[in-house]
């Protein structure tokens, strides 16, 4: 059985920065736009090496989305960069009309998502962004789990055609997917098991890896699936796994409404009803604090995942 260990610790936003820089080298049509957060988004290397393809928009996110949509007309592939809050909620109508409805090849890249933003507090800790983005028709939504996968996802978006939302974060986090293949829309079965399926994405994949080790000690066999792409959803992977395990736990750094849990529950209730528990923020705003303290307080720790698994197993047995 595959077990995962951290080969390094890095922030996912640096994975984005590295991927973007790589794309800059590969494809002269790739352009980048940033709303006064170049350092925070790790876009400095792209800016330094491709200054003519880097567009500083100032603190004007609505304009940035419109500019990006316009640049696609003429064959450019724009990657916009700002915090997840300002990448989604602040510019929802611009994304809806000028990008999604207009079918523009804009990649909306969003850092500092979720509670793990930490000390800046709830104004910036957006926990609703995945829900907003996945509701838009034809929008691809990706939440990678570590530095390596964020880099791979960024590079994959360079040859993906259509609007996309890429969500990542600020904290230094274990790196554990180096060398693993990444395909947009294809779930990654990281650990095979038979008693319960854990679906996780983003920073919560590492939390689930830690939970799996604790559950294994208790004799519970977990199948862990990294559902990095929330849309399009890998329905076959969900159904095949739950057919085997008979129950599911979802884990996400997002509101319980509108995120990964909702998407998995919809698939299961329509095609293969099974008990499901959701580890997510329970309809509340966050607050200032250290990332790991916040994950604990808001119910997103490995122990919370263990408890959710034990609960869903009881429900499965009836």
């Amino acid at each position, binding site marked *: 059985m595959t077990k995962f260990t951290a080969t390094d610790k890095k922030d996912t936003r640096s994975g984005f920065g590295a991927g973007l820089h790589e794309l800059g080298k590969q494809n002269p049509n790739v352009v980048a736009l940033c709303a006064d957060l170049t350092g925070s988004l790790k876009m400095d290397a792209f800016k330094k090496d491709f200054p003519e393809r880097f567009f500083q928009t100032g603190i004007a996110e609505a304009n940035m989305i419109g500019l990006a*949509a*316009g640049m696609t007309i003429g064959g450019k592939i724009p990657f916009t960069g700002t915090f997840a809050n300002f990448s989604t909620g602040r510019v929802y109508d611009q994304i809806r009309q000028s990008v999604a409805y207009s079918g523009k090849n804009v990649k909306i890249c969003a850092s500092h998502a979720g509670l793990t933003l930490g000390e800046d507090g709830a104004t910036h800790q957006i926990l609703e962004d995945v829900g907003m983005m996945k509701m838009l028709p034809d929008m691809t939504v990706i939440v990678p789990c570590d530095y390596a996968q964020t880099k791979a996802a960024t590079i994959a978006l360079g040859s993906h055609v259509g609007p996309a939302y890429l969500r990542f974060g600020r904290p230094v986090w274990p790196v554990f997917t180096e060398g693993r293949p990444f395909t947009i829309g294809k779930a990654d079965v990281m650990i095979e098991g038979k008693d319960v399926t854990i679906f996780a994405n983003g920073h919560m994949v590492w939390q689930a890896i830690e939970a799996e080790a604790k559950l294994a000690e208790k004799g519970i066999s977990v199948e862990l699936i990294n559902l990095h792409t929330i849309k399009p959803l890998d329905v076959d992977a969900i159904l095949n796994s739950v057919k085997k395990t008979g129950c599911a736990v979802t884990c996400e750094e997002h509101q319980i409404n509108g995120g990964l849990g909702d998407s998995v529950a919809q698939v299961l209730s329509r095609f293969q009803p099974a008990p499901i528990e959701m580890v997510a923020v329970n309809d509340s705003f966050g607050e200032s604090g250290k990332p790991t303290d916040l994950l604990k307080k808001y119910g997103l720790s490995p122990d919370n995942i263990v408890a959710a698994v034990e609960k869903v197993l009881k429900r499965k047995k009836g």
Partner: protein
Amino acid sequence: MAQPDFDKLKKLATQIRRDIVRMVHGCQSGHPGGSLGCTEYFVALYFHIMKHDPKFNMDGKGEDLFFVSNGHISPVWYSTLARAGYFDVKELATFRFLNSRLQGHPATHEKLPGIRIASGSLGQGLSVAAGAAQAKKLNGDDRFVFCLMGDGEQQEGQVWEAAMYAAHNKVDNLIATIDYNGQQIDGPVKDVLDLKDLKAKWIAFGWEVQEFNGNDLKEVINGLDHAKALAKKGKPVMNLMKTDMGSGVDFMMGSHKWHGVAPNDDELSRALAQLEASEDY
């Protein structure tokens, strides 16, 4: 460029005005007022000013591009595109009906030739046009990007984000126009939320600004020609184009009442009696 054939262009403007009132009457919805007010501008752009190809290509490399930010004036745009050969004029009869490519507000979703971005939610078009203009520069494409906005639309904050950006970044292949008719849905713009000295504002934002009468075809053509001469000198260009909402149909002029109201059968007859043309769809 060849001298404009004003007789031909005036006839086209009249024909397009007939199309507008008939389209809006046909589906009993839509926005005739702003459409009628901007007719000369659309005729000038598509039949004299712009280099463009009705065999539509989304990227439009080597062509002038045009973005309509105030998408509710779709009737004048659709009629102009059809009359310019982008699609069959008969399709104008489908405006706002189910399964039509002629959506209430312009969209790319149904792949109507000539439309490059959806518009309707106001304030977004200038940003898109500025982006397209910068893409042209990156591509070494020396053609222009035109953009039309409404005056009420100037109340949207995003317009001023784009204004600041385009001037700061010297997007000087961008020629924007404001349909300055002084009316919006709830009444005169000066009563709803006054724009004060709009010319001074655009100058202060770093744009080259000129004014002309948008309902005088000669003035529009001269104005747009002059805009091209002003462009590519380090500043984006803004045309403040004074128009009468409802221009060409006397009972639709001079008020915001016809912003988004369709004429009934009698009103249609009275409007068409004022617009003599012979090539109805």
